[in-house]
């Protein structure tokens, strides 16, 4: 999957969980500091990414991800190893 597509789908997932417009989800945005995600929503991100990309994410490692770019990086890696 192209990196651009991964980023686009990640932003859509985040916007869906946080109930904000996709345009507000900048590539370098920090989930907590810039987007105001709380700890429950961070857990929701992990579940939503797993469903969206049909991958399994190690929960502890996934919760370390703090930014949109970080999520894209993590998911690209997971897709490469899990397919």
């Amino acid at each position: 999957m192209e990196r651009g597509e991964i980023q686009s789908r990640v932003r859509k997932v985040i916007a869906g969980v946080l109930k904000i417009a996709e345009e507000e989800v900048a590539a370098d945005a920090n989930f907590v500091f810039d987007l105001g995600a709380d700890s429950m929503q961070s857990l929701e991100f992990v579940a939503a990414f797993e469903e969206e990309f049909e991958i399994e994410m190690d929960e502890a490692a996934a919760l370390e991800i703090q930014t949109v770019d970080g999520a894209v990086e993590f998911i690209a890696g997971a897709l490469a190893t899990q397919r």
Partner: protein
Amino acid sequence: MGKRKSREQVHGIFYPRSVAVVGTNRGRGTVPFDIFYNILKDGFQGTVYPVSPREKSVAGVKAYKYVIDIDDDLDMAVLVFPSTVAHLAMEQIGKKGIKSAIIISAGFREIGEAGMKREQEVKAIADEYGVSFIGPNCLGVINTDPECSFNASFARQMPAQGNIAFLSQSGALCTAVLDYALAKNIGFSKFVSFGNKADISEIDLLYYLKDDPKTRVILLYLEEVTEGKALMDVVQEILSERGKPVLILKSGRTTEGATAAASHTGSLAGSDEVCNAAFRQAGIIRCETIEDMFNYAISMAYQPIPEGKRVAIVTNAGGPGVLATDRAVHEGLTLARFSEKTADILKKSLPHTANLKNPVDLIGDAKKDRYSAAVSSILGDDGVDGALVILTPQSMTDIRSIAEELCSIGRRFPKPLYTSFMGEADVSEGVEILQRHHIPHYSLPEDMCQAFSQACLFAELRDRDPGQPTLYDDVDMDRADQIFATVREEGGKKLSMDQSFRLLDAYRIPLLPYGLAGSEAEAAALAGEIGFPIVLKVVSEDVIHKSDAGGVLLGLDSAEKVRRGYQGILESVRSSVAGARVEAVLVQKMAGDGEEVIIGIKQDPSFGSVVLVGIGGIYVEIFRDFVVRVAPFSRGEARAMVQSLKLFPLLSGVRGREPRDIESLLTCIERVGQLARQRPEIAELDINPLLVRSQGRGAVVADARVVLENLERKER
């Protein structure tokens, strides 16, 4: 520890004019929301801005996505974001030019290495921008001064205004304390939960409170003393410059530090003993419980500090009067003797069945008039330093009127007046009146007596002259340096007996004449030079308990006996300790008569070098008659140490015994104090015993051991 904060830097924490709460949200009942809402609802006199990435408004106030978006000068940020993004928030706080912050968030040093890294990162950013902050991991800060009225905490209620400041390392304890204080109508001037103290420490806060006109008494809850000497210095300054009491509740009365010691001093002077001694030396009142702390605090904050220990007890019930009398005497207070004038007033005002002497019993049917006459006349008596008034609720007792009358009397006399209205439900109205008018009230008369005694102790600590330590200039520093250099070169940590003796000699601490013999002929020759009678002691790293191994012989009065003794020691030691290497045999003058005293040095992780003095000899751990001081200290302190020992009557001459040379003992203690101060590389030192001879005949060291720092400690 970092540089001390300036008064202005700490002032910024208490008196901001415009505050941003960074990371707040709309979730009622959450810390980020409650902090913002408490500032808003508790009447903050400045401006408060919510900063929230998602919310357009919080509690009806327009919110900002970033702190840098706020179009106003800000002087304080309260950071409530999770620890994972605290560094991002601190970066913006710094860029905005904010100079004061409170970091409420947890998830730093207290959770381990990852948290420690985050804390260091946030601190480094704050330092870069010159931001001073409280926390992280704390409940927040409250300033009740109406000029500011600032409640940046997640406490349920803003406390009342008062003249007591409370500082706490534990945030959770703060909420309990606030609730306790609320129930007892206790107000605060400043209330600070300082958490991990990554930047502003309790020492900085104490320096600030010293000069805070709103604060009369300072309370501090500590879990660890990290800067012991600095704590002692600031409290001594508070006492000498402002005369404000500092009360500390220090948890963690552990003895684990004492279990791994290599000397008597090390095993006796555990961390809690040192802490107690250091607190007393600094003038700190150490409290056992939160209740004790507030019992003492209200007496010192509300009433004048007693000028003496002569108390008058006034009661409407005999039993409680006796209980109070017993406790007062136990606490070292004395029952005042009334003047003729007072006795006359009491006689005229009280029924003939009343007890007119101290404790004054007004009899069960006493109403306001009897309390009024007795308490006023007593407080007007020059022979009375304070009144302790007890009331039990009887059917005819007019509790409310009596409480009001006592409040009125309390205002008229510049002497302490404490009360104990015993019971709960019936007396509650009276108690509430007393509390509101700052007349200290205690549920139990025993607690009232204890509080009075602690106020007297405070007066004693405040008024004493700590004196200056003597600096003896006759010390042979080159010789001492040489000894340490040799030990280091040899890669050792422990000084040999000879090195220990030579070090003490360099500090002019008198030793029994001695020499080291490598043969029986040398032993006999040395004995001849020193003079009989002689003591022989084995010198061997392998023999710890010399007497048990047959390595000590006493009272040898001829060269022949010394020769035979030398051989005897070698045989005994070799048969009782297999493979023991004997370096030499110490030939020492027999000490003769003298009282055995131990003087020791120990390095304490919180307070540095401490000196111990106690009953010497082999039973030192059993009798546990010892006293500790942090070095340096004056001769007056050394004298106080000796006078506080149970051994003291034996030293000063009792039942026809000749008094011992206490002045020489004091000089030895002072010189050991100087050694401790000048040679912090000494981890442990024991002079045991020091023999204190009859007056005018001095004191001499019979045995000593010195261990330098980083010793691999033996498990005992």
